């Protein structure tokens, strides 16, 4: 079984948020429920100020702290599914301990006040147990893996588009959107990336492109000191997180 990993080249990423939009459309997430996001950081001051940005999916950690803290095993790491961390919405009690424990802030409890108006939950009231029911919905729904539109009172997160990658032929080293035979299996954020800054493949396959990129281009993992050991690697300059500092609104 593959161990799915993602490589993001920050020297190519333009911070355009196409990945965020594609993820939201693919997975029917609400505004603010950004399973995939691009985070912007400012450092320094004029004239030497710099702006950096980091695309941030769920890191699908090898040692996921969210899994360790979940009191009901609703959050679990599925090695049979490529090491993806899932949430079983049938078991989640909505205690939000996983949101506390995730160092990367990739978990969302969408049953909260809307980020923007109009509130889409009010515009498209939930049916059949869903938190909200938009007119278009992704065809795949699997609550045992946290795929689809969630019910009320549970936490949601990125699934590495398991509903797509799980359909890929066994033994595929890389899911490359440029390969016509594989493009349907590529995660939405990877497939849509205009500058092709994202790569997706099998970290257990020494011949995979993702492994070569990590090895040849000195791939790093964010916040590696946490010990969570993400399955998402970053290439290029700027793969670090500036310490939090308060900024005054002008």
């Amino acid at each position, binding site marked *: 079984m593959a161990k799915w990993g993602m490589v993001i080249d920050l020297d190519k990423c333009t911070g355009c948020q196409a990945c965020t939009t594609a993820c939201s459309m693919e997975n029917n997430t609400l505004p603010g429920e950004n399973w995939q996001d691009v985070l912007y950081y400012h450092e320094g001051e004029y004239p030497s100020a710099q702006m950096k940005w980091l695309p941030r999916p769920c890191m699908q950690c090898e040692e996921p702290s969210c899994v*360790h*803290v979940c009191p009901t095993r609703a959050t679990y790491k599925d090695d049979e599914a490529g090491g993806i961390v899932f949430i079983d919405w049938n078991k989640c009690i909505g205690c*939000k301990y996983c949101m506390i424990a995730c160092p990367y802030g990739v978990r969302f409890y969408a049953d909260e006040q809307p980020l923007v108006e109009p509130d889409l939950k009010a515009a498209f009231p939930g049916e059949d147990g869903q938190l909200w029911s938009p007119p278009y919905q992704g065809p795949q729904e699997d609550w045992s893996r946290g795929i689809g539109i969630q019910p009320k009172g549970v936490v949601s997160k990125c699934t590495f588009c398991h509903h797509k990658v799980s359909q890929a032929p066994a033994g595929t080293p890389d899911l490359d959107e440029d390969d016509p035979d594989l493009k349907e299996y590529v995660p939405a954020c990877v497939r849509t990336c205009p500058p092709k800054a994202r790569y997706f493949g099998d970290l257990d396959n020494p011949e995979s492109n993702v492994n070569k990129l990590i090895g040849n281009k000195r791939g790093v993992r964010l916040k590696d000191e946490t010990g969570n050991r993400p399955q998402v690697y970053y290439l290029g300059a700027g793969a670090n997180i500036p310490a939090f500092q308060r900024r005054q609104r002008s």
Partner: protein
Amino acid sequence: MTDNNVMKGSAGTGLLVLSLLVMVAGFGYAAMNMAAHGHAAFNTDANVAWGQPISTYLYFALASSGLGLLAAVPLVFKVKEYYPVAKRCIFLAFIILISGMAVLAMELGHTFRMIWALPFGMQVQSAMFWMGVLYALDLLFLLWKFQRMEGRDWDSKTTLQIGIASFLGVLLASGNLALIFGMMSMRPFWFDPSLPIYFYLTGIASGMAALVFYTYLAYGFDRGKMPAALRQLMEGGLPKLFVTLLGITFLFIMVRMITGLYANAPEINLVWSDYILASPVYHISLWGGILLPFLLLLSPTLRVQPAVQVACAVLVFGGLFAERYFFVVGGQVIPLFKGTWAWDISQYAPSATEWSLTFMGAAMIFVLYVLGEKMFNLSDSPADTPSGASQPAGAKATA
């Protein structure tokens, strides 16, 4: 012995009706808003996921644990001077924990699912799993111990064993509750292996405040109406223990504050400097709710006065409630990995629904307390037990 207990009369009935109304109103308001808006009725979000309902639960759970530990003074360590408050300690510990759990139940996304998902999941790596197990055991032991006291079995071997089990259960439950926060290395404000000690000490302080307040309340705030042994305790050892606990609590808070302010890490430093100490509410709570009662009770003449004791208990209620709130929220206000999406320290203030849950929990304590005072003799102690009735037949005394 208990004729002077005003809770058994019309004053108690009046308080019962009033607190019942507040409880029902609090529950009704929260339930109505949550039915209409779901958890959007709360002001929590992805940055501050745990808000006032969690801090309220924490406050109640630790006050309960504190009362459990105080009950161990006579029941485990055999300091007989404290027998007159043992039964009330156990009862208060039980009802305050029940009330805390009621607030928590309203906060969770799927409370009833927890009943089967927790035992079937058996996720022994999760401190929250153990919180469920240990507080369930805590409740069980409290109930069992109370049942033995109700049967006037104070000193049998079985009672002592239950008392020791309960004492250990309380230590484990509240210590584990601390570790829910203290083991989170990704939340530096909380990450602290000594947090269980902090929780024990502050828990006993809030338990003591509850004991003082509710004991006086039972006698209409008139110490002259108390049974002699209880009166003696309230004039002697208990206020000294109260002031000691407050002193240690204040010291511990200061140690955390100083190390936090000294730390360079913004997740600790800024929480103290720009969130906690920037809040006038925190200052009022700390100086007025912890230091002031400590100073008042330091005075040998003041600390024996019933009015001062009750006032200090009420001040400590507020002081430690705020302490729990700023502890829970403070651990989350520095945005975690959000970049400039989270521009500044996260803003959180409890919504009316969240406040209504806090009032619901507090009112529930009063409801159960008055019922307990009416139904049981909570001031009972071995001294009041008729000779020969202190042990069940065949039980071997160990004291």
